[in-house]
């Protein structure tokens, strides 16, 4: 397997405050990498740099063989993002939103793509509804459809199942597993739901205070730290004094 994403010595400072302190990692083709860490550990900043929303203070991000700083638009065509903290225009219908984003991503056959995503994400009955009037579970599925409208090679997920009920959360996880299997895409999953990470990710990175403090598969981390599950590993690592500082 090749590395679709390579992050090398990535740093981000805001004045004297260092949010990300020289992290490096890779995401292989057809892999879901879990990005874990407490609030303020640098996960969102890292994702922001991968999306070209933030300019790194140092280091580089290579996606599909190209540096994002030199090929921002070209790379943005191949990636997409979902987060509960950003929304689609509320006054537009679901279909109108998907058409708009289909155009913005220059999708060749938007109608066909919307039909495909509607079927996979059970959006058929929602297409003509106003986006702002949907429940959070429905909005989440619509956001997922928007994030997949351009058939991304790399999908960045920031807490994709936060605030969802267990049934919808399970639907989203199952969908992501199936979609990854079908399309062979790479996914970076930032999540606070340790069961979700254990289920979806073959490898994980644990961040704290802007550095990667540990990495490995969920099973390796559980065994290495002598804990029962990933949540206990998370608590152990995040409560320890950070020896990297």
């Amino acid at each position: 397997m090749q590395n679709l994403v390579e992050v090398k010595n990535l740093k981000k400072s805001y004045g004297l405050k260092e949010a990300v302190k020289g992290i490096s990692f890779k995401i292989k083709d057809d892999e879901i990498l879990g990005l874990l860490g407490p609030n303020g550990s640098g996960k969102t900043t890292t994702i922001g740099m991968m999306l070209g929303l933030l300019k790194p203070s140092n280091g580089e991000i290579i996606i599909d063989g190209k540096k994002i700083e030199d090929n921002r638009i070209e790379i943005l065509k191949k990636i997409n993002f979902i987060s509960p903290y950003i929304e689609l225009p509320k006054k537009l219908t679901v279909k109108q939103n998907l058409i708009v984003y289909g155009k913005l991503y220059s999708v060749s056959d938007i109608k066909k793509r919307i039909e495909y995503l509607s079927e996979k994400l059970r959006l058929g009955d929602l297409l003509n509804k106003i986006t702002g009037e949907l429940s959070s579970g429905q909005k989440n599925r619509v956001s997922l459809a928007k994030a997949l409208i351009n058939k991304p090679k790399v999908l960045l997920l920031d807490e994709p199942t936060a605030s969802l009920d267990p049934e919808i959360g399970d639907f989203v996880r199952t969908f992501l597993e199936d979609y990854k299997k079908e399309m062979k895409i790479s996914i970076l999953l930032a999540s606070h739901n340790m069961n979700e990470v254990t289920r979806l990710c073959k490898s994980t990175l644990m961040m704290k205070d802007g550095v990667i403090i540990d990495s490995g598969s969920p099973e390796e981390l559980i065994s290495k730290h002598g804990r029962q599950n990933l949540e206990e590993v998370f608590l152990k690592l995040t409560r320890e004094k950070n020896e990297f500082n």
Partner: protein
Amino acid sequence: MSLIRIYGLFLRHFFLITRSFPRILDLIYWPSIQITLWGFISNFFASHSSYYNNAVGVILTCAILYDFLFRTSIGFNMLFLEEIWSRNFTNLFIAPMKISEIITSLVITALIRALIGLIPAIILTSPLFGISILDLGIYLFFLFLSLYIFGITLGILVSSGLLRFGPSFENIAWSTMFLLAPFGCIYYPIETLPEIFQKIAYALPLVYIFEEARNILINSSVNLENLYTALKLNTVYLLLAITLFYYSFSVARKKGTLINIGE
């Protein structure tokens, strides 16, 4: 530049406007009210002022021109603010759109929004006051063009501020046109201003546009120098505004505004 992406962003706002009757009404309502109000004021002045005695439509025409400028500028800002208010800003900036495509799309959409308001207002003036802005002839096109460019320039400048400073810059977005209006000499000749304000006014294209509109209507003559100076100044300001927008985008990427803008 991709026409599809430009069209895509235009569609996002077109869908929004056409879905909501109050939004369409809002676009038409204010220009029409403004024109009606100023129509009556200008009728009054026409019978009480020797300056306007032979040109009943001067104030009304200037009101329409000013409103077009106002709508274009506010329209551009509104398109940008809509993205912030709907928390869609991040989605827009992670889409593969070049800055030039974003600006082009918003410029076209702002023009269409302004025209939706302007056309009913122009139609209203004829039956209500027996005045037609079309009396300005072919030069009307150049006056509108100049106002449109300046309106867009102000819109881009304010949007640069929104990019750099986030929603806290929103109040500036609303006040720009009111701050500049006195220097624009929209309803009075530049000589009315104190000398120091005249210097500021001469650095803006507005004074040349409105002086020329009055010149055409009152003296029935055309001073092309005014139109030329306005276009020249507009070009300089527009280029500066676009440069500032690119700079603000770059600073926003360094400061992290693009990530936190909706919060």
